[in-house]
């Protein structure tokens, strides 16, 4: 308990990304996310198997492990490092904090996530919930206190996911209902990259209430979700209803191509409060041409319709290369672009250079250098910003 208290204190002191998902696991021959994550499409809480694999495949080792050691997870992979839980119960936590350092500006501490996860699996039935504390801009996942309008969302009790589901066909199919991640595109953990932000599909705040069916087969995986809206925001006119879906097919060994589609209807968009139909349709690719390298790509076509006209057309795109220098140390380069169709002069473009170091069991240290040229509507000139983002991440 003292260790937990210490961890909490550190997380609070560092004071938003949350659920981790690693699409680059293709390099280890993992197409499906369901074996390692409670959510069958990835991100969020790990299964006990996923927890073990995170130790075997992700953790940095000072010395190269022997063949036997390389296959054997450390006993520290358990909840809170050492606690054995009954088979039906899966508890874990996600604490992420750090600092954002804009060049020419003051460092800004970030409290990104402090969530606890709980899952109960009885026979074919799965019940999952997460809850925690959120600081700043966590309104869409907030439970209490109420915020928005003239009340800033500064410190909120949040609940990002809570759902119940049942598995069928030897766990290849899962049907769920509740508040879940929206199935769309690459479920990358850089949640404010443009492909996630402009499609409203990041794993931090864009969960929706709905009903979903997912499939994880040998060559094909996918999920279809009926969106019923985010009931943690209101009035109802702002809630989006529709569908979101993705499917990914194994074309060749370690080469996966995917399609995503989302159409969401709301009675009021956030800016002009006009009825809106929002479209996002895209393609994804995950490819590991060499053992230590994974290439990821996503291109999304975006459209916003108002009742009597096509409002805007846009796009978002990402290409990412993840190179595992040695086990536990990843260098990641990303190039992204977007256009929101709002009279910008050309697209916005950005580049990320990142390093992720899984230094200890349950501990990740990450540094991102982000350069973005953000196009502004005419006549404003584009803005260029360079930011360093440092993160310390504990997953219990």
């Amino acid at each position, binding site marked *: 308990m003292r260790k937990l208290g210490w961890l909490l204190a550190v997380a609070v002191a560092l004071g938003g990304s949350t659920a981790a998902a690693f699409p680059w696991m293709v390099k280890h021959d993992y197409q499906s996310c369901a074996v390692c994550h409670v959510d069958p499409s990835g991100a969020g809480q790990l299964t006990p198997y996923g927890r073990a694999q995170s130790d075997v495949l992700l953790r940095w080792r000072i010395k190269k492990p022997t063949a036997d050691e390389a296959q054997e997870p450390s006993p520290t992979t358990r909840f809170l490092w050492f606690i054995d839980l009954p088979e039906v119960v899966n508890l874990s936590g996600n604490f992420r904090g750090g600092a954002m350092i804009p060049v020419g500006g003051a460092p800004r501490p970030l409290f990104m996530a402090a969530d606890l996860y709980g899952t109960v699996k009885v026979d074919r039935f799965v019940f999952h919930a997460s809850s925690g504390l959120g600081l700043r801009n966590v309104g869409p996942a907030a439970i209490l206190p109420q915020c928005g309008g003239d009340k800033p969302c500064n410190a909120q009790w949040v609940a990002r996911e809570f759902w119940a589901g049942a598995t069928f066909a030897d766990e290849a199919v899962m049907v769920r209902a509740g508040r879940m991640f929206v199935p769309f595109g690459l479920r990358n953990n850089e949640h404010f990259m443009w492909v996630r932000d402009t499609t409203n599909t990041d794993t931090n705040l864009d969960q929706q209430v709905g009903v979903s069916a997912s499939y994880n087969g040998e060559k094909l995986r996918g999920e279809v979700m009926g969106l019923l809206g985010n*009931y943690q925001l209101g009035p109802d006119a702002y809630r989006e209803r529709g569908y979101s879906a993705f499917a990914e097919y194994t074309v060749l060994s370690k080469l996966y191509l995917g399609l995503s589609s989302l159409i969401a209807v709301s009675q009021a968009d956030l800016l002009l409060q006009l009825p809106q139909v929002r479209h996002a349709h895209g393609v994804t690719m995950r490819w590991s041409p060499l053992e230590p390298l994974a290439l990821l790509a996503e291109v999304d076509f975006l459209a916003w319709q108002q009742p009597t006209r096509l409002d805007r057309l846009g796009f978002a795109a990402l290409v990412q290369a993840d190179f595992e220098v040695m086990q536990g140390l990843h260098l990641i380069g990303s190039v992204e672009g977007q256009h929101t169709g709002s009279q910008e002069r050309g697209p916005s473009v950005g580049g990320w250079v990142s390093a992720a170091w899984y230094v200890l069991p349950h501990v990740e240290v990450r540094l991102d250098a982000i350069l973005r040229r953000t196009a502004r509507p005419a006549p404003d000139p584009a803005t260029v910003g360079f930011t360093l983002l440092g993160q310390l991440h504990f997953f219990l």
Partner: protein
Amino acid sequence: MRFHRAIFFAASLGAAAASATPTFTGVMQTELMMSGPPPGVCGVCHLNGVTTTGTVTTPFGRAVRMNGLMANNDASLRAALTALTMANTDSDGDGCSDIAELKGMPSPTNPNVATDCSAGGDGGTMVMDGGMGGGGAGGGGPTIGPIRYGCGANSVPELMALAAVVALALRARRS
């Protein structure tokens, strides 16, 4: 939600996010050949002049929205002003059209506030019906309040739905 995040990251990454379109008042002046900025400047469209999310709720603001105004799109504002002119929209129901009030000489009057606009107007078209939200093509529709987050924003239905699913699952397991 997207908007709040945009502000956060724009501030963080050095980009400048704005919730009002800064060119709109200039477009109105040019398009309507006004002698100065519209009354209240941003307040002609934004409630109390506060340019944050969900504040384009003045009667005139709603009227231009319903005639196709799009954020950061000057052409959409020109088209909306043309539509209001054609429809003689009178958002405040004072008998003078919005466009006549804005073009009024020597100084424009506020199309959101009922005044004796005929005294200072430059021959603005009088309208005999319509009124707030109902004139010609200008009807702004009901005002939607600002977005709210949290339990008070109505999270009960989802909890009830989840409880129902859990109950059904447990019942199925028992049987």
